[in-house]
């Protein structure tokens, strides 16, 4: 029997996640799709797909008959709204929350890296799109050679960045940088996001740079390739766009990293491309796809482990 889930938030992320669950999931059943604007495109889409909807937010949701059977709630609203939603939902200990906002009330979760550490937690946070795309790579290097510094650059098509992302861009840089450290294992993390308005829109690109101790380059390369395969299991459009690049940062010419001082070692550069599945937004929106796919993968694994 499928496990019933609800999604709060009828923007790009919530709607894309709903489509993925309906079309792809063998273990999740879309029970209620929740928004706050009855005229929103997302709610209209849900009604058209035959999904029960609610336009009065979390307060409406918890009064519905469907509420009792729902086991997992996805929050695709905003950081501020998540704090409110979580206040309401944490009163129900049988429900788990998967938070796709930058609120990060619960621990960061990147499925192929730290799922097992967090499967008993009642509220997990999915970091950011850039974090989901890059932190697996930082962790892949770190499991072979200790990473001193991890830096990521996420380039996304302007059309795929909704108003929420745009108005709160610091949340992206700060949350991603923290998760590079906490989940990726880097001593220090840095995140950069660039919006590119080119037409036709460019597919999401993510670049990871790490400075690690000197390690076996072949082992690092293999570790990265294996990790890419892990991510591809739930994001088919995720790919290594170029072969892994290495540069030696010799002790005689160290780099000065804020917070770490002068460091040397091995620089690894990984150029990724994330093509979306084209469910709600077109293929260029890999940023949307990787976020919703990671949330779906997390929910499915939670079910495998818990129920």
């Amino acid at each position, binding site marked *: 029997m499928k496990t019933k889930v609800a999604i709060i938030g009828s923007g790009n992320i919530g709607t894309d996640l709903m489509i993925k669950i309906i079309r792809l999931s063998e273990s999740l059943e879309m029970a209620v799709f929740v928004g706050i604007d009855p005229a929103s495109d997302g709610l209209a889409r849900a009604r058209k797909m035959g999904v029960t909807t609610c336009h009065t937010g979390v307060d409406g949701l918890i009064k519905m008959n469907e509420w009792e059977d729902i086991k997992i709630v996805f929050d695709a609203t905003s950081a501020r709204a998540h704090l409110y939603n979580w206040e309401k939902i944490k009163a129900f200990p049988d429900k788990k929350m998967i938070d796709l906002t930058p609120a990060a009330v619960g621990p960061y979760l990147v499925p192929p890296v730290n799922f097992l550490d967090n499967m008993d937690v009642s509220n997990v946070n999915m970091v950011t799109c850039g974090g989901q795309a890059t932190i697996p790579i930082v962790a892949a290097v770190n499991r072979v050679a200790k990473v001193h510094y991890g*830096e990521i*650059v996420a*380039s996304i098509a*302007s059309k795929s960045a909704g*108003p929420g992302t*745009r*108005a*709160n*861009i*610091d949340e*992206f*840089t*700060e949350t991603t940088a923290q998760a590079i450290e906490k989940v990726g294992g880097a001593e220090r993390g*840095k995140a*950069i*996001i*660039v*919006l*590119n*308005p*080119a037409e036709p829109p*460019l597919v999401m*690109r993510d*670049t990871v*740079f790490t*400075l690690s101790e000197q390690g076996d380059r072949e082992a690092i390369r293999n570790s990265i390739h294996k990790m890419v395969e892990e991510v591809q299991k739930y994001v088919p459009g995720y790919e290594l*766009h*170029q*072969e892994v*690049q290495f540069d030696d940062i010799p002790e005689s010419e160290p*780099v*000065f*990293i*804020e917070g770490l001082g002068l460091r040397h070692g091995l*620089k690894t*550069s990984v*150029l990724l491309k994330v093509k979306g599945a084209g469910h709600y937004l077109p293929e260029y929106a890999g940023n949307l796809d990787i976020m919703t796919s990671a949330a779906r993968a997390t929910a499915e694994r939670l079910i495998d482990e818990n129920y």
Partner: protein
Amino acid sequence: MSKIYIQDVTLRDGMHAIRHQYGKEKILEIAIALDKAGVDAIEISHGDGLAGGSFNYGFGKHTDWDWLEGVSEQLHHAKLTTLILPGIATIRDLKKARDLGVESVRVATHCTEADISPQHIAAAKELGMDVGGFLMMAHMNNPSDLAAQAKIMEDAGADCVYVTDSAGALLMDGVADRIKAFKDTLDDSTEVGIHCHHNLSLGVANTIVAMQHGANRLDASLAGMGAGAGNCPLEVLVAVLNKMEVTHNSDLYQLMDIADDVIRPLQTRPVRVDRETLSLGYAGVYSSFLLHSEQAAKKYGLDTRSILNELGKRKMVGGQEDMIVDVALDMLANKRP
């Protein structure tokens, strides 16, 4: 017209020309000399703004905080200013700069993405700072749409909005049309600024054209010290303003001396119009890509110009330095039999 306000960018844009390697003492020495010579504002930070130090843009010799510390106390006339790019630095960084005596900041976005700046502009106003909106790669947006972006920055609280020709790709008409659109769209109380790159040798001419159409905040740097073929050279601009009998606060001969005696000797790669920097202007590519592209060309045995042209074709915007190696690797793969 509002009073002419000259902002020096030698210690910010000039960072690009020397891979962000100014020593702390050099920064202080140059800032003091610029203040004495009467420039109105001195911008200091990593070339890519606060917290720009990274693999992607190059690590600085110092942190922004080390560069900024102790400068404001030494300035008598000039305002200490800095730059922030939302997406790279955060409001937390801005507050740190404010605590170090920075009075004015420019919040920079790509010319179509002004709506990622209101949070930072509002935060800077709350901190009591003078704020400029900085619309980069201005040649990639048409005058009326660019002015609409400027309006977003004005609405968020910007005191001034700039036409920022990051690629040094605009011709004089292009500058005039954009400044005119700003003047038509923005409130009379909002100032308009111009920031040029000299890639097509139009740095001074474009700055003057902008001024003649109502821009009063003019960016320039000593000996043009800046990304690509550099910025509008400050000493030349001041000489031209003198000949035009435009009132300003700067002293020509002092600026000439700092440019030649202090700045030029620092330039490890000459800042000038040559085939590579001309290609930036010609292809409309972000000037800061220059040294990174030269480095990639060297590493992978490719021609810098071809890399720059391809970056232009792919419509890469400021900040996408990581795509330089990507382009180089694609070119290398296509070269192989």
